């Protein structure tokens, strides 16, 4: 999973003709995924050109807001030479052809869709263009070298053929061994961008999400889950639930009791009337207060080494100044706007699923195992995802499996839906983490010793998806481990204590960076003040060997006029962090009103290498900043006696329009390796905000969310 070893395509910006090998045989469509239109031209699993001139692009990654519905077709259209508005886009089903080019499974995650498909989708388009041109040459008798393409046509001498006309002939030609990709100077879409292809259906109500599945005979199911993680049903009485008009059936499934009804309302009323006695199990012992104390105690001790150099303890003892910090990060719910849901229909030895999922292949395998069916008998249909943020990528397929259990137990096709409360209380959270950081500064205020211990559950260890967990889960320490700041510190130690809890955990937009960037960027800010230096100047000194961090930092500092004095009552904070191969620097401008922070303006600079769709990158920066703002201001789930105390958006707040700052995004003109966009603005947002709060109040915030701290403006 270490994608840093695999980032490719950086070289393509050098210009000149580009020869690329055609898509390997493994990427041919297998029997499972059928071509869109019979008789058309399906040169690979990503493209079909119908004899009726329809061009259909099939996505290996799913659209959950990040804009891949537009970006992958852009890449293909660039080489195929068609207008984007000629293209029909669809999600692929499960097929090995759609496996991630690096991760080897079918997954949308890790802010990787664009860079990992940059070659493959261009290749898919170029292969088709080559064959269509050959078909036109054959038909017209004009040499291939005298044929050219233009927006869905091949021009062969004085003849003009549409791609649709040529589709049948092209389908009979052998695939070329290699194709020529367009040089950057010829790009029409890449680097210039395109409007979102899905904007229209997302403004008129037509876009279909999993929640919108409807067909004759489909019932709605709602599950009463155990109130405590790991709890089980002891007994239940469905008499009152069954008396609710519209309730059809009540069935027990592993982990709960499902009420199946004609529609949502009846299912919800039925669930309210259901009486369940639970065996809560040992999970009731879990309380946030005691967990905090236990984790803090552990964090004060040396964890398993994630990164070490020299003797951090000895150097700390010799340092001129000592900074000590203890950070606490709560469990967080992803809370996508579309609550989790899944539709399942079992028919003999086949099963059909409709689910907004980031991990369709894993879901297919898990359903096949549960039903004892062949994986190829499980058809996964993927509608639009109403937000994902990692929650729709569960290695255990939790919400998919739950729907299949209900369909199996009831013998009916069911749409299993979670309410917002289910979504908030039923798990798979960003883990609870504690950091203990001890930094020693030399006489000039520069770090000479760094001791950093982290405590929390292991996402990769509990996911069990990529083999047995290593002693140190990188997703627990990423952002501290490998930090450019640490590389400047001669004696340092990064340790990890991996804990086990009953609470199910998962990757959450930017994963480990959600907490590591906070610890790093706030303590570096503290160090700058301790050294009597400007926070940007101080970072520039420490990052002098990290050109991409510097590029982002320098750009945002210039654009935000960092050194210019602000209006009275306004304060700025800065942070810079690399995640998923992109470097994002943020400057937040705040004021303190009624003991709370108001974020007025956020400037952001990103070095992501080539920005294939620049406005798409900007949209993802805006999105990540608001997501980070929510995390900073309000993000907190607490447990009491094993039960999650938050319920809905009134006590698990999300930033709203009136809290949304002005956001300006600047993209570094970069020829470096391509990185991601979807997650990359989340990590530096919260630290930039609290660093601005420090400038305003002189108070450091070590425990998120900010709402738990009363803020008092400095006189």
């Amino acid at each position, binding site marked *: 999973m270490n994608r840093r070893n695999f980032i490719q395509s950086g070289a393509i910006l050098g210009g000149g003709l580009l020869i690329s090998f055609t898509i390997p045989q493994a990427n041919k469509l297998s029997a499972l995924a059928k071509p869109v239109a019979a008789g058309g031209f399906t040169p690979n699993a990503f493209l079909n050109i119908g004899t009726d001139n329809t061009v259909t692009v099939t996505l290996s990654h799913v659209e959950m807001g990040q804009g891949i519905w537009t970006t992958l077709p852009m890449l293909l259209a660039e080489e195929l030479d068609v207008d984007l508005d000629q293209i029909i886009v669809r999600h692929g089903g499960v097929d090995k052809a759609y496996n991630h080019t690096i991760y080897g499974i079918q997954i949308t995650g890790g802010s990787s869709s664009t860079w990992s498909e940059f070659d493959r989708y261009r290749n898919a388009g170029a292969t088709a263009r080559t064959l269509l041109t050959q078909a036109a040459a054959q038909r017209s008798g004009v040499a291939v070298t005298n044929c050219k393409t233009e927006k869905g046509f091949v021009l062969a001498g004085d003849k003009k053929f549409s791609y649709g006309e040529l589709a049948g002939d092209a389908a009979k030609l052998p695939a070329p061994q290699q194709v020529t990709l367009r040089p950057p100077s010829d790009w029409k879409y890449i680097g210039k961008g395109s409007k979102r292809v899905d904007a229209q259906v997302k403004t008129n109500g037509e876009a279909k999400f999993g929640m919108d599945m409807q067909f004759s005979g489909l019932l709605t199911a709602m599950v009463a889950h155990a109130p405590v993680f790991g709890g089980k049903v002891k007994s239940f009485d469905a008499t009152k639930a069954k008396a609710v008009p519209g309730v059809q059936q009540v069935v027990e499934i592993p982990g709960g009791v499902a009420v199946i009804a004609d529609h949502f*309302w009846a299912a919800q009323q039925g669930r309210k009337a259901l009486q369940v006695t639970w065996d809560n199990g040992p999970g009731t012992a879990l309380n946030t207060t005691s967990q905090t104390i236990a984790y803090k105690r552990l964090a004060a001790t040396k964890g398993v080494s994630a990164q070490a150099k020299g003797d951090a303890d000895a150097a700390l003892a010799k340092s001129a100044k000592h900074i000590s910090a203890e950070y606490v990060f709560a469990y967080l719910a992803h809370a996508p*706007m579309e609550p989790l849901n899944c539709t399942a229909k079992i028919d003999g030895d086949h099963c059909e699923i409709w689910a907004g999922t980031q991990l369709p292949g894993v879901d297919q395998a898990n359903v096949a195992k549960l039903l004892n069916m062949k994986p190829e008998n499980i058809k996964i249909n993927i509608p639009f995802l109403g937000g994902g943020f990692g929650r729709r990528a569960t290695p255990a397929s939790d919400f998919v499996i739950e729907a299949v259990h209900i369909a199996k137990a009831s013998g009916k096709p069911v749409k299993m839906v979670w*309410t917002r409360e289910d979504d908030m209380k039923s798990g798979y959270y960003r883990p609870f983490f504690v950091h203990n950081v001890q930094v020693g500064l030399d006489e000039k205020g520069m770090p000479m010793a760094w001791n950093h211990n982290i405590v929390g559950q292991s996402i990769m260890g509990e996911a069990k998806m990529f083999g047995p967990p290593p002693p140190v889960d990188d997703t627990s320490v990423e952002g501290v481990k490998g930090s450019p700041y640490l590389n400047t510190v001669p004696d340092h130690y990064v340790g990890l204590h991996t804990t086990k809890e009953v609470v199910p955990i998962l990757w959450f937009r930017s994963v480990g960076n959600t907490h590591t960037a906070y610890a790093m960027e706030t303590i570096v800010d503290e160090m700058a003040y301790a050294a009597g230096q400007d926070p940007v100047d101080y970072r520039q000194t420490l990052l002098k060997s990290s050109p991409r961090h510097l590029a982002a930092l320098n750009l945002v500092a210039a654009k935000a006029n960092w050194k210019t004095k602000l209006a009275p009552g306004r304060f700025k904070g800065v942070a810079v962090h690399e995640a998923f191969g992109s470097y994002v620097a943020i400057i937040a401008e705040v004021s303190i009103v009624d003991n709370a922070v108001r974020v007025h303006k956020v400037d952001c600079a990103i070095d992501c290498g080539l920005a294939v769709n620049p406005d798409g990158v900007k949209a993802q920066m805006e999105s990540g900043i608001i997501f980070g703002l929510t995390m900073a201001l309000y993000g907190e789930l607490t447990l009491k006696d094993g039960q999650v105390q938050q319920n809905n958006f009134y006590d698990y707040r999300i930033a709203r329009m009136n809290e949304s700052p002005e956001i300006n995004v600047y993209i570094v003109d970069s020829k470096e390796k391509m990185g991601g966009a979807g997650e990359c603005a989340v990590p530096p947002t919260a630290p930039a905000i609290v660093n601005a709060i420090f400038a305003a109040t002189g108070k450091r915030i070590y425990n998120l969310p900010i709402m738990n701290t009363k803020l008092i403006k400095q006189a």
Partner: protein
Amino acid sequence: MISLTVNGQPREVAADPNMPLLWVIRDLLGLTGTKFGCGVAQCGACTVHLNGEAVRSCVTKVSRAAGQQVTTIEGLSTNNNHPLQLAWQEADVPQCGYCQSGQLMSAAVLLRENPNPTDQDIDDAMSGNICRCGTYPRIRAAIHQAAKMHQGGAKS
């Protein structure tokens, strides 16, 4: 049976009078553009117009809509050409898109009542609608843009 008019069409539904309008619209009438997000009037994804006023359909009993006019996102315009829909597309507002029906329905009432809203007016009218993708800056820009288009249209 309860009679109501949805997007100009007279409809009759066999529903418990306490059933929220949201589930009548989605599960009984099959109009899925109106979304379920929270069920407690906290997120605005279910916003529709009841006699022209924005209401959270998840907490509005269908009995309240009996004999009344309901407009959903499917009825906001005849050809996806409401100034807000055009501005939304022009500004590339939607990301996951799930909340946008509700955002548009809230914004439509704002714009009708206040053809030239200030940022403060937008904050006041739109803060009941949550967008987890954080499209707020673009929603704000698109509302301003739609206001301009609207005024331009009125002049010509």
